[in-house]
């Protein structure tokens, strides 16, 4: 094949190409939390952790069927983001959704009862772990098709824009979904129409069993919007204060009408992809190191102690409270009856 002479590949410098995008914001410093904020974050994250541990137990006991994807390790992401948004803002995510629902303020009983497929579950037992919704709490699912929620979330943002409302939509997806085509179709429209959509990429390093380096040509997910002029920020997704600060910045960006923004949350899941995943694709040491050095709940706990905002007794009391809530939810989810057989044919059409 003929080679072009080297000089031919040199493009004439026609000046800097004009970029319409505003300056990419830098990762903000972690937010300064008050005692109340730290305690709330601790409580909310611990709630997710204990809930998920219980869900894992119930799965092992056969009360929960099908797929069950636990959120343990990633608690700081939803907790910090939820603290950044306001009443009326929407949340949508994929099938690893229990943490998001609890963060949205959905009742642990209703969530757990849905996991066990009972009539007082959020979807009357018809959705299960992966498909749960709460109109009341502006939680739009709970979607089982990888990447599907990204277009849907962009549509929620479209509706906000259509109605001239200042609401924003938090659209969560993982490093795996980041390789789906519709993500980029959505990015394009969101920036084109300046939709108020915060794309929260939860990079937990593994798409099921495939590590990001084995699946992604560009592993810096914050840059995935660069073809569309969407700014992105890398965030320490294990530090709830860092998440909150990034969330505040992103919400402000969207409400100002600047269009979408990407937050890459660098996080980690301790458990397998789903309950049936033995996690042979990573070492036990890797998991242990993350747990020991970066655990989101432990970080807050240590700050609370160090600042003398709480002592071991207070924290134990919180843990006890949470265990009681989760225990009640689990009990409810086991005793609540299955849906009536007549429910088979309801909710197919309005």
């Amino acid at each position, binding site marked *: 094949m003929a080679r072009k002479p080297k000089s031919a590949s040199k493009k004439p410098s026609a000046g800097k190409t004009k970029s319409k995008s505003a300056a990419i914001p830098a990762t903000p410093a972690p937010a300064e939390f008050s005692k109340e904020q730290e305690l709330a974050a601790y409580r909310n994250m611990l709630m997710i952790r204990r809930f998920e541990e219980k869900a894992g137990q119930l799965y092992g006991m056969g009360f929960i069927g099908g797929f069950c994807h636990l959120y343990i390790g990633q608690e700081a992401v939803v907790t910090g983001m939820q603290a950044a948004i306001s009443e009326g803002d929407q949340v949508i995510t994929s099938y690893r959704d229990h943490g998001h629902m609890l963060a949205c303020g959905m009742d642990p009983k209703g969530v757990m009862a849905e996991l066990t497929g009972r009539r007082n579950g959020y979807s009357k037992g018809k959705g299960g772990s992966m498909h749960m*919704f709460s109109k009341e709490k502006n939680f*739009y*699912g709970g979607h089982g098709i990888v990447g599907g929620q990204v*277009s849907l979330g962009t549509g929620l943002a479209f509706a906000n824009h*259509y109605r001239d409302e200042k609401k924003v939509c938090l659209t969560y997806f993982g490093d795996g979904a980041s390789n789906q085509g519709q993500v980029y179709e959505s990015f394009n*429209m969101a920036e084109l129409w300046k939709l108020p959509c915060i794309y929260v990429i939860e990079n937990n390093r593994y798409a099921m069993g495939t590590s990001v380096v084995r699946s992604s040509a560009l592993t810096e997910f914050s840059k995935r919007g660069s073809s569309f002029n969407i700014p992105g920020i890398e965030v320490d997704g294990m530090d709830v204060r860092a998440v909150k600060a990034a969330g505040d910045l992103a919400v402000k960006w969207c409400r100002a009408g600047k269009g979408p923004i990407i937050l890459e949350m660098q996080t980690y899941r301790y458990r397998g992809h789903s309950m049936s995943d033995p996690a042979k694709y990573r070492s036990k040491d890797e998991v242990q190191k993350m747990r020991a050095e970066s655990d989101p709940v432990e970080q807050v706990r240590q700050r609370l102690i160090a600042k003398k905002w709480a002592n071991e007794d207070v924290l134990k009391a919180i843990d006890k409270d949470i265990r009681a809530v989760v225990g009640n939810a689990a009990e409810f989810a086991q005793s609540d009856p299955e849906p009536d057989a007549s429910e088979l044919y309801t*909710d197919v059409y309005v």
Partner: protein
Amino acid sequence: MPINITMPALSPTMEEGNLAKWLVKEGDTVSAGDVIAEIETDKATMEVESIDEGTVGKILVPEGTEGVKVNAVIAVLLEDGENAGAIDTTAAAPTAEPEKAPQEPAPQPVAASAPTPAAPAKTTPVEPEYPAGTKLISTTVRDALRDAMAEEMRADNDVFVMGEEVAEYQGAYKVTQGLLEEFGAKRVVDTPITEHGFAGLGVGAAMSGLKPIVEFMTFNFAMQAIDHIVNSAAKTLYMSGGQMGAQIVFRGPNGAASRVAAQHSQCYAAWYGHIPGLKVVAPYGAADAKGLLKAAIRDPNPVIFLENEMVYGQSFDVPDLDDFVVPIGKAKVHKAGNDVTLVTFGIGVRYAEDAARELAEMGIDAEIIDLRTIRPMDIETVMRSVMKTNRCVTIEEGFPQSGIGAEITAQIMQNAFDYLDAPVLRVTGKDVPMPYAANLEKLALPSVGDVIEAVKAVTYK
């Protein structure tokens, strides 16, 4: 040799158009590629370029002439040294018919493009869905669809239309003509070519309470979006225990157009008809198109609205009512008859009408049931007819296996077995991808001949 300049086709389905304007006069010299005239259809205006160089010898069709048939000679070019005397005016094809019957698509001049059409049987609707004495206005299906969207958009600010080329281009098939002007860019949204993305975006908007009308340039392209149509739009209501669903219409041309081959010619009625949670509508005439689209936009469920490019330009009577709505889920006895039931929908009604006319000459009185809605299917109307005629032939353009005809056949087996005097037969598209060649395409589509053969078989004639 003088060169004939003929009326060009703007699309494979165009049969005639108007000669809007001549940009040259007799005696002008032109080069190949010069724009010499403008022609228009109800869909678009296009420039006609000279195909060769020479002198405009004679203009055979004056500007302003309407209904000029495709391939009619509209002007003659003279080459160097020729004079107007060389023009054999008898060669010029007849041009416009002064008064064209509005609902009769002329047979295509080139072989095979339109599968059947001849004049549809003149049938008065058996069950008129509007008060007697209502004024009727001849309207194309294209305009009826546009009117339905415009009326609903006027009535409800939450209704908006989105899709490729729906706004500034005025619709790839001109179905959204004029909507941008009336409703503005916020409610008539041109999307990038990104079916998967904008279908999902539409469903998301619907989940928050807006009422999108998503136009697919054709339903073939909706294959990119079928995940959101099925997994997001159709299932969310059920998966959320009734908390949220999607009031959304997915519409666009479905089925075979003409000479566009395998990837652009497929009927998706059976595909979407399979899915609980979806409603699937497939009208034929303009009144049903309008009334059903209005019903679809108001329906709180996701509705697949299957149109047909071949009938967009065809005119039908539409009742002149402020708010003409046809309920979803009701079939129509399109023509009453006693000897055999022809069950069909969409453009299949054309095949049925043409076959019924020929069958009448053979002494067979066919009843035509136009399903109009595929899901929920009005199987009762079909049963009533079959119990009367005791014979049934289904007609559809889709593939045979697991098709609409297969469903109807099974339903009749279960519900009217004892009434049957013959097995139900299906007339369908052939079990092959759509070929391009004109003769093969004709063979691949169901034909009036296929219908007549099937009817003869079930009536033992």
